[in-house]
């Protein structure tokens, strides 16, 4: 596993990457224990993998999720209330019985504070051991990422950066050069959250990245688009516009929050999304 496994997950050109908040017990907190919440997450992950997920992003909840919209904020609150902690998170990852890469998405402070000494080393080491293949840290721009890059390189964990619609050439260059695994292309400005339409910005950003890639010689990084994708049709549009995969979070988290037939519903939406991504790929390569 590790960085290569993530690259491999993009082989069919239309990766489906679901996001779930780890340990989110869903709507009804009253009967949940940390163990039951973790077990539920494990079931949901399996369902999504069954539906065709190529990579799974698992959120490690942080109390100040500044990059997240209301849906994922609420999931974060629920997960924390249900008892999710970094050690339990790693336990959960270790317990997963799936053969797709797992990417941990969290903020800088919990990984900085993990373990006996300050600094990101202890977390990355433990995460790699538990089976985490990559990291996404939305509040970590390239300016601050050197220590984490070092630790990730040492433990063969991908460090996935985000490219935003506001990211200009010089920053894009740094992000492309320093990121590993895949490039998280933020579909639109704002925070995470499902939206009705995929913005023109997405296509524009993908084109800019493609142009940049064409002008450089280093290895190509898969581009997965996230922020606001919730339907198969959107997935198709995005992949059709040049993405190598789609990241879907809030729409799935909503299903967990509602708490009814979660496994079946996740599987259903997962299939739709994977199918959509494939359809988009077909459209583009026809």
């Amino acid at each position, binding site marked *: 596993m590790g960085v290569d496994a993530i690259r491999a997950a993009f082989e069919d050109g239309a990766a489906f990457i679901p996001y779930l908040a780890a340990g989110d017990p869903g709507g009804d907190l009253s009967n949940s224990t940390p163990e039951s919440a973790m077990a539920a997450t494990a079931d949901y992950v399996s369902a999504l993998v069954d539906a065709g997920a190529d990579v799974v992003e698992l959120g490690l909840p942080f109390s*100040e999720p*500044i990059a997240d919209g209301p849906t994922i904020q609420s999931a974060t609150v629920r997960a924390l209330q249900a008892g999710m902690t970094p050690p339990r998170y790693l336990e959960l990852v270790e317990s997963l019985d799936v053969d797709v890469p797992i990417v941990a998405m969290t903020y800088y402070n919990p990984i900085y504070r993990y373990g006996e000494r300050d600094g990101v080393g202890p977390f990355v080491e433990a995460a790699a051991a538990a089976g985490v293949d990559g990291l996404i840290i939305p509040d970590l*721009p390239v*300016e*601050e990422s050197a220590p984490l890059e070092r630790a990730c390189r040492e433990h063969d964990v991908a460090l996935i950066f985000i490219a935003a619609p506001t990211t200009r050439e010089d920053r894009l260059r740094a992000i492309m050069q320093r990121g590993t695994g895949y490039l998280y292309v933020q579909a639109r*400005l*704002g925070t995470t959250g499902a939206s009705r339409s995929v913005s023109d910005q997405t296509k524009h950003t993908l084109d800019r990245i493609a142009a940049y890639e064409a002008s450089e010689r280093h290895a190509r990084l898969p581009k997965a688009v996230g922020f606001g994708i919730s339907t198969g049709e959107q997935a198709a549009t995005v992949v059709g516009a040049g993405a190598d995969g789609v990241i879907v979070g809030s729409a799935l988290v909503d299903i967990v929050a509602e708490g009814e037939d979660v496994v079946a519903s996740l599987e259903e939406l997962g299939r739709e999304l994977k199918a959509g991504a494939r359809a988009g790929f077909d459209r583009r390569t026809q």
Partner: protein
Amino acid sequence: MSGGQYGRFGGQYVPEALMPAIDELTDAYQRYVLENEAGFMDDLAERLETFGGRPTPLQYADQLSDRYDIDVYLKREDLLHGGAHKLNNALGQVLLARYMGKERIIAETGAGQHGTATTMACAHLGMPCEVYMGRRDVNRQRPNVFRMRLNGASVTPVDIGRGTLKEAISETMRDWAGSVETTHYVIGSVVGPHPYPDLVREFQSVIGSEARDQCLEKLGELPDAVVACAGGGSNAMGTYDAFLEDESVDLYAVEAGGDSLEIDREAGVAPNSATLSTGTEGVLHGSRTKVLQDDDGQIMESHSVSSGLDYAGVGPELAHLAEEGRLAATPVDDEAALAAFHRLSQLEGIIPALETAHAFGFLEERGDDLGDTAVITVSGRGDKDLESVIEESFKRDLPEAPDLSLFTTDQGGR
């Protein structure tokens, strides 16, 4: 490594989407603020004088000086337009946003003082403005909510978490993540990603540089102690900055001791906001600094009777100066702050903000070993706190408080 490092503290821990705006701001800070391009700093100084009421006086406090047998001087930021030092920064940033061509202002607020300062600056400069404020603070600081609305700004209550400053900052960052191209985020203290801690300190440093000049003019010498309350730390850094190189001057940062200094890291609750005294290193709201957090790195809910100090972080430069020993951080608890509020109101005829009252609680505790002369910044006035103080004093049966029972129940209709 990014700019804006203070020893181990500082940095720019923000989403990529914001980085271009942060870079733009860094550039504007360099040009307009540090290099006075287009006469920006002159424009600001003129507005601070005529709109804001600068310079603020340095007042000799007759009764406190008597009481503590030390010459106590008050730097009267409470006289600034809006009633707190916050305008120095708010006006600076809103004006800077205008020079940068931004079209909209967003801000967070705790006590509402930064919020009102920002809305006043926005009205003055004709800028649309939206302020995020925790629901709990909306309820604690109602007059300031009214003032912001009266200035024509939107006020958006934040219902997440305990509904205080921390949540308001997070929410404002979320707004900014979506609006960054046209919008400037006016952070209210020396916190956040670089260049904010520098920028805010620079705008607030007028407090200390005036005070230092006034000391030299009035006393012919520097004071022995300089005291300021610290929440995020803009009042403190603004007060200290001019004195940093004066080694004979002791600097005291008075933090909110809340109910108690005992922190329950298991339960994730800090019954205080004394971040320098009880916090640990972490990354919050864009910078590496001292933070109130539990063993898992989750930010704790802080507590203070004063909204403006009720914050789980602190400016990175303060964290650095405290670590270096250049300043001493000392907590003063809720009750001592309330008592000091009443003391200043009764002895000096100055009703301070509850935030400010903490500094005077420190004076009561330590007034006798601060040397011959102390300067204390009266960071704000207490009009916003009247209801809270009455309620909290009554709850505690505080001996320093006047009896208000005659007036607190409504006597006949209006």
